[in-house]
C-alpha cells in the first residue's frame, strides 16, 4: 500500500534496523529499584485435564534484568506466560506482580498493572496498519473514554509546546484549554512512530499488518507491547524465523529495550541468542523447573544438556 498521506511516514526509508528513535520519548518511568523482585511465581501449578503444563513452578523476575525462560517443546513456557498475563488462571499457587496477587485478574487489567507480551503465533490486528497497531498499545495508558471523545469534555491547560502556533486557535486554546483527547491522540501518534523507529520498521508504518513480512510482524508485536509502557515485557520466541544476522540485531534490540527501563522476560530456543543476551536463565522441563542460574551455569548444567541442548556441537 503505497499511500503515504501522512507526513511522518516518509521520514526514514533505508535505515531500517538502526535505531533512529528519540529515546526520551519512549523511555518509561519506573517506580522501583533495580534488582527488587518484580514478578514472582509461587508454587504455580496449572493443569489442563490430564496434562500438567506447570508443576509447582517457582521463580522470580527482578527489576531491570533480562531473564531467559527455556526448555524443550511443550515444557510449559508459553503456559507460564499465559498464566502471568491473565489468559489462564493457575490451578494452584500464586503469581505476584510488584507484591500484588494477579492470578485470576483479567488480561487487560494485568496489562494496566504493567505486564505486556508478544505471542508465539503472531497475533497482530491484521487489518490495521502497523502504526494503528502500536496506537492501540499506546491507548492502554490513555484515559479518555467515550464521553470524552464525543463531547471533548475533559480539558487540560496545555503546556507551551502543546499550544498551536497560529493566532486564534492559540488564544482559544489558552482560554478553553485543549481536550485531553486531542493531546493524547497527538502524543500517541508521536510515540507510536518513535517505537516503530525503535524496532526498525518505521518504513512500513502505514501498511496493513497482515501484509508485512514475518520478521516485521514480529518486531511490530514488540513495538505494540512496548507501547503499553510495561514494566515487564514478555517476549515469546521473538527470534523465530530470523536468520543469524537478524538474530544478532534482535539481541541489540532486546538490550535497548532493557535500557529504556523495561524488565524483559524472553522465551527463546536459539541458544546463541539466549546465552548472549540474558542475565539469568530459568529452565523448564515437563512443567517443572529443572535449573536456574547465569547463562554459563545453565549451559554447563548436565540436566539441561540432556533434556534440551543435546550435544554441544552446533546449536545455532
Amino acid at each position, binding site marked *: *500500500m503505497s499511500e503515504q*498521506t501522512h507526513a511522518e511516514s516518509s521520514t526514514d526509508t533505508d535505515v531500517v534496523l538502526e535505531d533512529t528513535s528519540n529515546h526520551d520519548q519512549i523511555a518509561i518511568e519506573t517506580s522501583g529499584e533495580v534488582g527488587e523482585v518484580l514478578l514472582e511465581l509461587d508454587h504455580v501449578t496449572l493443569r489442563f485435564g490430564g496434562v500438567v503444563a506447570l508443576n509447582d513452578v517457582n521463580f522470580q523476575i527482578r527489576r531491570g534484568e533480562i531473564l531467559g525462560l527455556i526448555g524443550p517443546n511443550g515444557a510449559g513456557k508459553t503456559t507460564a506466560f499465559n498464566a502471568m*498475563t*491473565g*489468559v489462564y488462571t493457575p490451578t494452584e499457587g500464586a503469581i505476584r506482580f510488584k507484591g500484588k496477587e494477579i492470578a485470576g485478574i*483479567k*488480561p*487487560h*487489567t494485568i*496489562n*494496566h498493572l504493567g505486564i*505486556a*507480551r508478544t*505471542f508465539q503465533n503472531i*497475533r*497482530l*490486528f*491484521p*487489518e*490495521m496498519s502497523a502504526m*494503528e497497531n502500536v*496506537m*492501540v*498499545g499506546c*491507548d*492502554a*495508558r*490513555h484515559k*479518555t*473514554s*467515550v464521553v470524552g*471523545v*464525543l*463531547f*471533548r469534555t475533559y480539558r487540560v491547560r496545555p503546556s507551551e509546546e502543546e499550544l498551536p502556533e497560529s493566532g486564534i486557535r492559540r488564544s482559544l486554546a489558552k482560554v478553553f484549554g485543549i481536550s485531553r*483527547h486531542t493531546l*493524547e*491522540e497527538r502524543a*500517541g501518534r508521536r510515540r507510536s512512530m518513535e517505537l516503530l523507529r525503535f524496532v526498525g520498521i518505521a518504513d512500513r508504518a502505514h501498511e*496493513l499488518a*497482515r*501484509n508485512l513480512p514475518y520478521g516485521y510482524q514480529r518486531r511490530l508485536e514488540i513495538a*505494540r*507491547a512496548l507501547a*503499553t509502557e510495561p514494566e515487564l515485557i514478555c517476549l515469546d520466541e521473538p527470534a523465530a524465523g530470523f536468520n543469524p544476522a537478524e538474530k544478532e540485531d534482535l539481541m541489540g534490540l532486546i538490550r535497548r529495550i532493557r535500557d529504556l527501563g523495561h524488565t524483559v522476560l524472553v522465551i527463546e530456543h536459539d541458544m546463541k541468542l539466549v546465552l548472549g543476551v540474558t542475565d539469568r536463565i530459568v529452565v523448564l522441563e515437563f512443567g517443572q523447573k529443572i535449573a536456574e542460574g547465569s547463562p554459563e551455569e545453565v549451559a554447563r548444567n548436565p540436566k539441561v544438556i540432556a533434556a534440551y541442548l543435546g550435544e554441544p556441537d552446533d546449536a545455532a
Partner: protein
Amino acid sequence: MSQITDAYRGLKLGERWDHAPKPVRWFVMLLVVAFAFYLPYLNILPFAYIRTDLTSSGSDWASVLFLIVVYMIVAVGLNVVIGLAGLLDLGYVGFYALGAYSIALFGSTNSPVVEAMQSKFGLSEEWAVPFVVCIPIAITMSLIAGVFLGAPTLRLRGDYLAIVTLGFGEIIRITARNLDGVTNGAAGITQVPVPPGPESDGRAFFNTIDAERWYWLALAILILIIFLARRLENSRVGRAWLAIREDEDAASVMGVAGFKFKLWAFAIGATLGGLAGLLFGSKQQYVEPNAFMVQLSFLFVAMVVIGGSGNIYGALTGAFLLTYLPERFRDLVDWRPFAFGVALVLVMILRPQGLVPSRRRAREFDDRREEAKEAAADV
C-alpha cells in the same frame, strides 16, 4: 495552476476531498446541508423527478424524507454496533420499538401507564408526561435496555450474539403485544405526544400533515449525531473497537477492556435506535407492536451493509436508498418485494464492498479480492 490540477486529476474523489483546503470543505458541507433542508420544496425539473409524489398513488415527499432521516439515525447507530465494534445485532428494532413505546407509554393520555398515574396521583384526564420530559425517559430506557441486554450477552461471540439480539427484538415486540394492561396490546397506543410549538391554523406546529417540519427537526438531530459519531471513529474508542473486532484476546492482552468498549457500542447504538423510534412514534402519533417486526431489523442491517459498513456516509447512503427506492417505485405494486430482493442481490454481487465503503474497508477488500482471485485463478 496546471500543476495543481494535474495533481488532482490522479486522485480519487475521497482523496481529493482530503486534500481540499478546509474552507472549501466547510463551504461544500454547508451547501450540502442547505440543500438537504431545501429538499422538501424541490420542484425544479428535472431534479424534481426524485420526488415520490409524482406518480399516482405516490406518497408524501416530506413524509418519506422524514422516514429516510429517521432510518438514517438508525443506520448511524447500528453502524457503531456493526460497522465499528463488529457486533452483529439482528434485534436493533427492539431499541427502536423501545424509543417509540417509551414516549407513547408516558406521553399519551391513551396509555394505561399514564392512566394509572392519573388515578394514582389524582391528575386530570388530560394530563400526561410532557414531551420534553419523555425524551430523556425514552433515551434512558433504551440506554438501560442496551446495557441490560449487553451485559450478559456481550461475552458471546459473533453469531451467538446475533441470534440473542434477534431474540431480544422479538421479546420486546411480543411483550408489547401481549401486555394489554400496560401497552394496550395489539391495539397500540394513540395520541402519542408531539414536540411543543406554536399553533397555526388550529393545528399544532408539529402536526401530521406538515411533514416537512418533522423532517427538519429530524435532520437537525441527524446532523448533530453525525458530527458526534464521526468523532468516535478516529479515536481511542474507535481503535479499541477495531482491535476487538480483529482479535479480541490479543486486544485484551494489549490492555483493551473489551467488554467495556463493547458495552459502550451497544449503549450508543441503543440510544440512537431509541431516539429514532421516539421520532417515529411521535410523528405517527400512534404506536403498535406490528410496526416492529424482525424483518425491520434485517432491513436496518441491510442499510448499513449495502452502504458500506464502518463508514457513516455509507450507512447514510444505505438508509437513503433502501427507504427511498421502494417509495419512489410504488408503481411496481406487487412486484416491489421481488424487485427489492433482486436489487439487493445484484448490488451485493456487483459491489461487495458496499456502495460507499470506508477507506479502510475498501483497502481491506482490495487485498482480499486479490487473494481470492489469485488463489482461484486456476479453477
